[in-house]
Every structure is written in C-alpha cells, then in structure tokens.
C-alpha cells in the first residue's frame, strides 16, 4: 500500500511522541488533554481510486482498505491552523534570496553539518566566512592560479 503523509502544519512533538512515531506511523496514542491547538497529520492512501488525501473525520482509528490506521495530533507552534505563513519571494530563483556572505557551515564533533545564518553585522564581524563556507556556497574563492 502506498501511503502519503500530507504535511499540513508545523508541529511540535515531545521526545516520547517522536519515539512512538518513529516506530510506527499508525496507531499513535493521543492524550485527550493535548487535543487543543493541534495540527494533524493525515494519512492517505494513494491509488487509482483516490487522488486526494484521505482526511479522517474523527480522532480515533479508521480502516483504510484492510488495514487499521490512525492519525496523530500534535501541538502546533505557529498559527492556529498550523500552516506555514506565506513568504514573498522573487519570481525566479536566479539570484539568491538571502545574503550568501552571512551563511556559515558548522561542523559538530560528531560530523553533523548545519548552516547558520548571521543576521547582524556584529555576528558577521566576529565570525568570518571561511574558504570552506565560500566554496560550498558557490562564492568566488577557489580559482587558484596553478
């Protein structure tokens, strides 16, 4: 069965729920006192007979084909609907939407890579951009005269 999770909202989950979720998408227990201000993860079945996400009308289990499924609800950090707010962007992606001179690659001890964006000039001043940063941002730095 092909399953698609329609991500309609930005959610917050505590570690316990994440652990449950990672083990099994279906059959997540939902505590009744956390049912306010919730976003929903909808589980839908994609097939020739159904081109649209299936949105369950209740918070309990539902039967999808021969399989029992359920959906979980999690507190949302953002708007009541849980949707991301729209962003205004240029019509084409020709030029960067951000200032590339403000991105820094952070390499943690475990080898984890994260990109940080420096929002203030003071941060930029105290955290110079390295050749490594520039190279992977595609900035003009690496043409060594051989």
């Amino acid at each position, binding site marked *: 069965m092909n399953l698609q999770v329609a991500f309609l909202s930005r959610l917050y989950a505590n570690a316990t729920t994440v652990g449950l979720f990672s083990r099994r998408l279906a059959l997540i227990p939902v505590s009744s006192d956390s049912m306010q201000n919730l976003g929903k993860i909808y589980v839908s079945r994609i097939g020739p007979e159904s081109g649209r996400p299936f949105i369950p009308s209740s918070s309990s289990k539902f039967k999808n084909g021969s399989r029992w499924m359920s959906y979980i609800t999690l507190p949302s950090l953002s708007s009541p609907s849980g949707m991301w707010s729209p962003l205004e962007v240029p019509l084409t992606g020709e030029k*960067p939407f*951000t200032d590339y001179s*403000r991105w820094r690659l952070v*390499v943690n001890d475990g080898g984890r890579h994260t990109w940080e964006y420096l929002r203030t000039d003071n941060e930029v001043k105290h955290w110079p951009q390295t050749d490594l940063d520039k190279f992977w941002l595609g900035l003009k730095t690496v043409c060594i005269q*051989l």
Partner: protein
Amino acid sequence: MLQDAPELPKPKDALEAARNGYRFYKHLQAHDGHWPGEYGGPMFLIPGLVIGSYVTGMTFKTEERLEMIRYLFNRAHPEDGGWGMYG
C-alpha cells in the same frame, strides 16, 4: 582566488601535481579534518528533511525557507515544471 592560498607552481611531474592538489584541498578541510560535501535532491532529500522537521517539531529559519524555495524554483524543469529525483 582563495585569500590565503599560495600561488601554486605549475607541476613538472605527477608528484608535484599531487602536492598541488593536496594544498588545494587543505582549504576545503573542516576543523576536525574531514572534507564536507554536499548532497541534494528536490524529491529525495527535501521531503525527508521536511517530514523529519514536521515530526520532531524542528522549525525552519526564514532564511532556510527562502533558499529551499529558491532551490525548488531552480530545480524545476523549464518546460513541464516537474522535479527530478536528484534534480
């Protein structure tokens, strides 16, 4: 040109060429010694990132959202607007 990169001499043999390569890659080395690389895919990695963030509650910075949108813009097929698995 790399700001602090030395002007590398034109190699006369394979060993000198290898040395030039070594000097070049020193500038792309992370502090712990490894060489980070990039890996992308509009239909392959972004969904996993978004799904993971959704499940764990990890939020995206506005700048991340903007560049993700731009990435998807730039990876769209110019004629049919679709995305390839690996871009």
